[in-house]
């Protein structure tokens, strides 16, 4: 074999070899576990801690309120829709859960103020004509809106 051909082969082997080694070192270990990406990214996304506990979580300790809620018009609403994120309270009931201010009418109006964009099936009130001098909670229980306290 002429020496230049031998050197050419040696050079090719060296280049390909260093490419293979560099690739081994630079590719993250979990690459191609699921596809052309780092498989560990899935576990990283999954490892965040949830902030909202979910509808089933409150049932464990507040079944009485859940029962009341299911009896009336607010049955499709989850507890945390009005009470805010409560997973800290679920893990440790001593940490206070947020109790919405019952004098706060804007919370109710967010869903019930008359708005031509809302579907007609949603019960809406015209704020000025609906007992505007009083607070909603004086006539509607938040958990059972058709009951009077």
């Amino acid at each position, binding site marked *: 074999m002429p020496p230049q051909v031998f050197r050419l082969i040696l050079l090719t082997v060296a280049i390909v*070899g260093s490419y293979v*080694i560099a690739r*081994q*070192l630079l590719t*993250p*270990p*979990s690459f191609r576990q*699921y*596809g*052309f*990406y*780092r498989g*560990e*990214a*899935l*576990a*990283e*996304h*999954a*490892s*965040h*801690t*949830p*902030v*909202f506990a*979910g*509808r089933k979580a409150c049932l464990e300790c507040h079944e009485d309120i859940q029962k009341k809620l299911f009896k009336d018009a*607010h049955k*499709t*609403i*989850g507890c*945390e*829709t009005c009470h805010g*994120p409560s997973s800290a309270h679920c893990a440790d009931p001593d940490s206070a859960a947020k109790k919405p201010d019952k004098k706060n009418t804007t919370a109710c109006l*967010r*869903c019930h*103020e*008359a*708005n*031509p*964009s*809302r*579907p007609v*099936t*949603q019960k809406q009130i015209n704020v000025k004509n609906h007992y505007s001098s009083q607070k909603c909670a004086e006539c509607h229980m938040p958990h059972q809106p058709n009951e009077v306290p």
Partner: protein
Amino acid sequence: MKNTFSRRGLLTTLGAAAAGVLSFAAARKAKAAIKTVFVRTNAPKDYNPYDHKWLMCFDVDKCIGCGLCVDACKKENHVPEGPTYFRNWIERYIIKKPKPGSDAARGEVIVDSPNGGRDGFPPTTIPREEILKSFFVPKLCNLCEHSPCTQVCPVGATFDSPDGAVLVDPNYCIGCGFCIQACPYGCRFLNPETKTAEKCTLCYHRITRGLKPACVEICPTEARIFGDLKHPVENDPIQNFIQKNKVNSLKPHLGTDPRVLYANLDKEVR
């Protein structure tokens, strides 16, 4: 001086070095495998991405535009504050009556989304008599089967996971913004803190734990329906929804084949 190098000796040393480097890589791989199992105790371990296929459905006729889903998403995923950073948002469509005398079926279409709908929608200033119809459309990542955003990523940082979520790997994203331009639905943004692309992850940390995404959890009217096509439960809400409604997807002509379906969608919605 006598030359102490021989070709055989040099080749043997080189071969040994290469073998050493290769076995180092193998050891690194094994170490990383142990790390994923033991260090990431926070991630649910019994979740197999091949064993699920998630689907999201919306009933436009049920959305009341309270905007609590937008608020919940920001809180759940620690999305940066500010009026341009949203993983999901609500649009209000107002379709005006056609001008008197014109032969059009409908007039001007006005779309707005103040702060993404996070603070709810104040009643519009357009007088009621001029409105032909009006409705809210909730929007988020369309979970495309053929996602344009993953095709343009130059570094493989965004991908379709086997369970149908389209995710971004924040450690690999270089923040070039190609995917933000490529998304036909405008569902991505550049996080101003990390400078990486961000989008709806379908609340990946929740669905892997058997919870529903925060926006579905919070919706007061069941306008959002979420489920697993591979594990239909008894009286499955997703199957019922598709059976009862005539469903459609956004921009079907683009061939992205979204896995977010809408019922009662108006033709003006884009």
